[in-house]
């Protein structure tokens, strides 16, 4: 069987898998950004309890592996009365894990904003919320966008692990196709290429575009 025949035969399954992977990617990315912002800001809070809570979250999720967190959420959490469907467990675990890495980026980004900006906002008697939202965060965002680009690639790769709790993503379909055709090089190779194309032609250019837009908005283009 030539590679083209193989592709023609299995294209629908790869497509289904890719769509699930894209859904997992977007949902976990949104969760990760939300958690990263929350935990990153909490880490800089004046309140010790807030700092401590964020610190515990960050250290636990950065200190253990995503796979352990995924299994824990899927197999152990039900024992505590919280049962998540595999699809939800998948993106929740990925989002929690990458959110912890993102929190450190947020913290670093905010700390990299020059002190004069804080003082100027203070001198203009802006409220703390307004100062953060209008002055500090936009500049911090610009500083931290390049590492966020890398993080988004890590996130995309991390979604492949949800196949291990039987979410029917691209990785899962590749395994199934390998099991039914025994053409491992084609089955896994095709999936590798799809991941690569998605990362290289969609995620990375989008993040670059975002960097340019942000730079222009802040008049730094």
């Amino acid at each position, binding site marked *: 069987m030539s590679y083209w025949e193989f592709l023609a035969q299995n294209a629908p399954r790869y497509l289904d898998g890719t769509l699930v992977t894209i859904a997992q990617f977007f949902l976990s990315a949104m969760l990760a950004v939300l958690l990263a912002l929350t935990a990153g800001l909490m880490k800089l809070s004046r309140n010790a309890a807030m700092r401590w809570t964020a610190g515990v979250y960050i250290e636990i999720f950065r200190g253990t592996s995503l796979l352990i967190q995924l299994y824990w959420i899927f197999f152990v959490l039900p024992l505590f009365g919280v049962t998540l469907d595999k699809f939800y467990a998948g993106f929740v675990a990925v989002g929690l894990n990458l959110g912890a890495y993102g929190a450190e980026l947020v913290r670093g980004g905010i700390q990299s904003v020059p002190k004069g900006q804080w003082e100027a906002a203070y001198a203009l008697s802006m409220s703390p919320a307004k100062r953060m939202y209008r002055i500090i965060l936009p500049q911090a965002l610009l500083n931290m966008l390049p590492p966020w680009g890398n993080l988004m690639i890590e996130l995309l790769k991390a*979604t492949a692990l949800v196949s291990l709790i039987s979410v029917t993503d691209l990785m899962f379909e590749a*395994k199934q196709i390998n099991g039914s055709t025994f053409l*491992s090089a084609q089955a896994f190779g095709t999936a590798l290429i799809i991941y690569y194309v998605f990362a*290289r032609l969609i995620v990375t250019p989008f993040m670059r575009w975002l960097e340019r837009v942000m730079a222009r908005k802040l008049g730094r283009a």
Partner: protein
Amino acid sequence: MFDWRWDFAFEILPRLLQATLNTLAAAGVGYGIAVVLGLVFALAQRTPSRIVTMVVRECVEFIRSTPLVLQIFFVFFVGPQFGIRLSPWVAGMIAIGLHYSAYLSEVYRGGLDSVPKGQWEACTALNLSTTKTYFRVIIPQALPPSLAGMGNYLVGIFKDTPMLSVIGVAELMQAANAIGGSTYRYLEPYTMVGIIFLAISLPAAGMIKLFEAWVRKKLGMN
């Protein structure tokens, strides 16, 4: 709703600790491969040939932007298709070593780029061979700025070893899965695996920071 059984936890502890040794061995061997292969990738991007640079660059990007777990499957299953049988350990070490070599090559690249141009010119002026230039002058200076990244990826590779369980490498995650599968108790094994990982990766990250500071001090930087 929640019954943590200490007797069960203590019963499985020796088995998990035994598997921890395998996890550490896997991380160590994988890292060893990555350190060497990463240098090859980094140096290959500095040859005069533009085509070699481009091809190697694209390979590094490819490895970096595709999932490790998929690469592990790929290496493990593709061999037998062409008549090469790899044991789970060998396939796992190749996959994880290759994956991290792509990351380390980026770290080295940054380190090599940070060596001032004058050092290269001085080597040319002294008529040193390329090998001597690299191994006696450039790499020793490129190493200290690379140490932080190298340390982070040592912890990173350790945290990625659970993925080796998917092809049956007998490491920590595999042991926890086996215990869970035979006793139907998942709470203790998975929680303990998490704690073991925390107990190793947090001090390791701290120690790497100290080591880095020590090297910088020894070399008279900062």
